[in-house]
């Protein structure tokens, strides 16, 4: 008896542990804050998000907030990341605190994965509808098959006012019904799951009303197992099986007549995303050398800039991995760009006087800010392919913008 008790206790414990482990084993990941842990070269040399605009910083439940802007698929796409032939415009949020109502690339709704072309710039727009009150860090995000998530800048958006319970997500079908997706079919799901659970339990109960383990085991061991199943048992079995088939056939027929028009799930990569027509950059930039000074958290690069355009230009911004280094005497941000990613005076040039058309000049450019460390961009010196990359934004006196790219090796300096 003692042995039996111990065993029972042991196995009860094992069972509970297993059940607990299994039910808590998988919870869909709710966090999106992998932005800093991602390899720096991934963030610098894949997708460049710019001209971002957030329609609101505070919304009430059921209200929309829109994130729009452009992304450039970088020419120097790293070899170790698969090309964006299958990519999905995602949004980085901690679980469905917003729902993604719409998302567009080049004006085309993109509920599925798309093919992007390296070297092209696309316009995008994501419409989110507020669902759960709280402060949420919202990132633009591009998932690339074989490359993982490429995370854009994260901005805090507050959902305040209204209640989660009041969230509605109405949709109208082609057959003319309007329904709320938030609670769609809940009672039907509950009905069928309870129904079949009761049906299954009834089947087991029929058998366990009688002694279950010890007497049956002893009889079976004694070679008299056949006495354990009676003719009535068989009839009940037939009834359960027939009932099962009948219920499935009838309920399937009922579902078919209630929903006569159904379509399969829609899948497959979408092609033909339309990029922005870009004119060729009129400012040519050559990187002579570049170093990252570890103690000063500053990157210094020597650039030879040639202005092939028709108006004089000045360098206003250096952008890399969502971090923006500005020269505030040339250009100021007015979009409410996330502060931790914006160095308003982080860019200094040895000579930033207007560069006349046709003129070539070699300058020292320094981009310094704590963001190098905070966003672990300085880790690039530990990457297997220690290159940096980014965009340079030049402006003429009328505010016209010319974009050039840089992509060059980076040498660390430790003193």
């Amino acid at each position, binding site marked *: 008896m003692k042995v*039996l008790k111990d065993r029972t206790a042991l196995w009860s414990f094992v069972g509970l542990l297993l059940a607990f482990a299994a039910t808590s084993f998988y919870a869909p990941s709710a966090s999106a804050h992998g932005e800093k842990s991602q390899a720096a070269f991934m963030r610098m040399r894949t997708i460049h998000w710019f001209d971002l605009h957030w329609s609101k910083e505070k919304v009430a439940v059921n209200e929309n907030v829109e994130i729009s802007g452009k992304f450039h698929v970088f020419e120097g796409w790293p070899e170790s990341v698969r090309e964006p032939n299958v990519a999905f415009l995602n949004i980085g949020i901690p679980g469905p605190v917003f729902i993604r109502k719409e998302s567009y690339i080049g004006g085309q709704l993109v509920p599925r994965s798309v093919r992007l072309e390296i070297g092209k710039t696309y316009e995008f727009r994501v419409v989110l509808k507020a669902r759960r009150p709280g402060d949420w860090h919202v990132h633009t995000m591009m998932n690339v*098959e074989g490359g993982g998530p490429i995370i854009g800048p994260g901005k805090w958006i507050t959902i305040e006012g209204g209640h989660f319970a009041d969230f509605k997500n109405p949709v109208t079908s082609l057959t003319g019904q309007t329904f709320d997706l938030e609670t769609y079919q809940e009672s039907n799901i509950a009905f*069928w799951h309870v129904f079949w659970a009761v049906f299954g339990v009834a089947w087991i109960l029929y058998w366990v009303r009688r002694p279950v383990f010890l007497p049956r085991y002893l009889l079976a061991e004694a070679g008299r197992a056949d006495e354990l199943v009676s003719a009535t048992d068989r009839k009940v079995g037939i009834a359960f099986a027939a009932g099962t088939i009948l219920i499935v056939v009838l309920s399937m027929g009922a579902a078919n007549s209630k*929903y006569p028009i159904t379509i399969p799930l829609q899948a497959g990569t979408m092609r033909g995303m339309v990029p922005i027509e870009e004119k060729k950059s009129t400012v040519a930039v050559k990187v002579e050398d570049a170093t990252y000074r570890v103690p000063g958290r500053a990157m210094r690069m020597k650039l030879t800039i040639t202005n092939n355009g028709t108006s004089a230009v000045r360098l206003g911004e250096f952008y890399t991995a969502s971090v923006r280094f500005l020269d505030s005497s040339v250009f100021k941000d007015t979009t409410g760009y996330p502060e931790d990613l914006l160095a308003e005076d982080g860019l200094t040039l040895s000579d930033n006087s207007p560069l006349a058309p046709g003129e070539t000049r070699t300058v020292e450019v320094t981009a310094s800010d704590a963001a190098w460390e905070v966003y672990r961009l300085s880790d690039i010196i530990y990457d297997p392919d220690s290159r940096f990359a980014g965009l340079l934004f030049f402006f003429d006196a009328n505010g016209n913008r010319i974009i050039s790219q840089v992509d060059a090796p980076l040498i660390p300096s430790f003193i």
Partner: protein
Amino acid sequence: MSALQSAASSRAEAIQVSRIVDYLGLFILFMVLTGSYHIHAMLTMGDWDFWVDWKDRRLWVTVVPIVLITFPAAVQVLLWERLRLPWGATVCVLGLLFGEWINRYFNFWGWTYFPITLCFPSQIVPGAILLDVVLLLSGSYLLTAIVGGMAWGLIFYPGNWPVIAPYHVPVEYNGTLMSVADILGYNYVRTGTPEYIRMVEKGTLRTFGKDVAPVSAFFSAFMSILIYFLWHFVGRWFSTVRFLKAT
């Protein structure tokens, strides 16, 4: 055997002890099955069962019955061989559904706030009842594998259709044709699960056109038969009574 008998001094007491052992045994069996079968299910069918926009006519129909016939096949051996009880498959799937509902309700909905309408589990009780009844009536594992396994695979899709059908209603969504299930998957952002991971409506069954679900179901049924055999032997190995006899 002697240990079991000598534990009780009178017949009435013996019956009482036997009944207590029954209740404890059933509880333990249910919990152990819930835990282990659920882990097995999550590791094998995973997303196909988690999300309604993965429940398609090809892969879901094929994958779920094949990977789920495993535990029922094994537990049927134990319960039928040792105790002549024909509810091995049913107790497995009830345990699995119990575990799944706890997970979906508390983790998916309670913790992460995915609506239940997006992440309810598949229905598998009808197939389990048929599997158990075939074993009861035939008393043969071979017939259970062939007839029961076939029934298990074939009844899966129709058994789920009353719940799934409304998710296949077409919607014109901002100029794109989508099913309700597609929209649910699109609306409720799964940051860690980009759309291209979704394995639905892929495969080489294009030539069957509209009638792809029955073809997938038949394929699944044939595979279920094979897997049943395989796991039958796993069950045989597990249901040895060597340890019980030793005590």
